[in-house]
């Protein structure tokens, strides 16, 4: 078994440098690589290009790096819920490329799977397709979108083992599996580091071959963005 374990976020980030392009998993604040983001902040890298569906909130997730102006460019599909982000974007301090969510997922997957580009109908006829090649197939129009090229990919999984095998939980899965193996080096942080051989080979979401480094994450906050609930009393319970 090929060993991928490193001791912590610090070791996992070796080789990261200013100006790099990073992929970061997560949807909203769910499934984000909290430890990697925190370490990126502490080490103070700047001029980063971040490919991530969202940009966190003001004081959590990628919002932490935005506050410290470590990010030069964001490639995302949705960046609401972040005032500092909006300020930097409208003032021109931050370069932002907004792309459709499915396109974002598939450009990651293309990099993972060795495809140079894909044809998607998303964005055809909109400003997203401006300057891009378009083409008709079977009477429908598609936009040519290229695979991402990133230096590091940071993902967060629920369980993982020394071989780098990963299992995700619920909707915290989101972009994380698609970003594994989509950068030169993929770093996975996990909530539960499990003994080798304890994961069912049939139930692994991402085989270790797509992961170069894995570590046991610490102090997960797992903040909830929109806490929506029902009252038990209303349903005659409890």
């Amino acid at each position: 078994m090929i060993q991928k374990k490193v001791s912590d976020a610090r070791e996992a980030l070796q080789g990261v440098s200013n100006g790099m392009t990073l992929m970061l998993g997560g949807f909203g604040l769910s499934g984000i690589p909290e430890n990697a983001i925190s370490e990126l902040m502490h080490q103070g890298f700047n001029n980063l290009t971040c490919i991530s569906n969202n940009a966190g909130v003001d004081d959590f997730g990628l919002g932490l790096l935005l506050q410290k102006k470590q990010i030069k460019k964001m490639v995302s599909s949705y960046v609401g819920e972040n005032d500092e982000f909006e300020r930097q974007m409208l003032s021109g301090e931050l370069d932002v490329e907004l792309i459709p969510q499915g396109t974002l997922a598939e450009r990651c997957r293309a990099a993972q799977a060795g495809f140079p580009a894909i044809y998607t109908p998303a964005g055809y006829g909109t400003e997203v397709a401006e300057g891009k090649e378009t083409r008709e197939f079977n009477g429908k129009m598609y936009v040519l979108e290229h695979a991402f090229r990133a230096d590091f990919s940071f993902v967060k999984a629920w369980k993982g083992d020394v071989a780098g095998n990963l299992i995700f939980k619920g909707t915290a899965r989101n972009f994380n599996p698609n970003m594994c193996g989509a950068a030169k080096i993929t770093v996975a942080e996990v909530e539960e580091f499990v003994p080798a051989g304890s994961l069912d080979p049939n139930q692994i979401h991402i085989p270790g071959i797509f992961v170069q480094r894995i570590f046991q994450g610490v102090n997960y906050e797992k903040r909830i963005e929109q806490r929506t609930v029902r009252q038990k009393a209303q349903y005659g319970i409890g």
Partner: protein
Amino acid sequence: MALDKQGIAKRIAKEVKDGYYVNLGIGIPTLVANYVREDIDVEFQSENGVLGMGPFPFEGEEDADIINAGKQTITTLPGASFFDSALSFSMIRGQHVQLTILGAMEVSENGDIANWKIPGKMVKGMGGAMDLVASADNIIVAMMHTNRAGASKLLKQCSLPLTGVACVKKIVTNLAVLEVTSKGFNLLERAPGVNVEEIKAATEGNLIITGEIPEMNI
């Protein structure tokens, strides 16, 4: 009387048929789930990676790892599944989702939709909306007929950056139900107590009125 948001959601719920997989956008569309008939089988997909969404969790049972595309904590029903973003958009792009309901800032008479950007003012991003409108066969827009300034949102041509081209099939507003045809907005139903003249006045795009327009039954 014009419908409120709940009323719009109630009317749209009638478009949800047995056996449909449905994707609900943020805002009014989310409310539609509350009004779907209980005697039909429907599953709700959320593009962040869940099929078979249930209601909000009971207080204290929220799970940060189980949310919908609006980042709200949710639950799942028996038969649910979780999956990654690529597979989620395979469902959408591959036309496996039968009905997409989403909000809009503007819709044009040929079915263009704008709902993601107001240049210089508001740029939240398109999220999954561009993928949804580019692929879905059956798109219903849920929105108010006019904006806060009272201007029509049903236009000859959209003034805001587009989300998708010639894709909207049906629109349900606080005033009316309309279908998009090759000749413009075909008025199908009036909101209870709303007359055709009011709808005409609130619609900038070409409005087609054929015969008696029935009142919505909700």
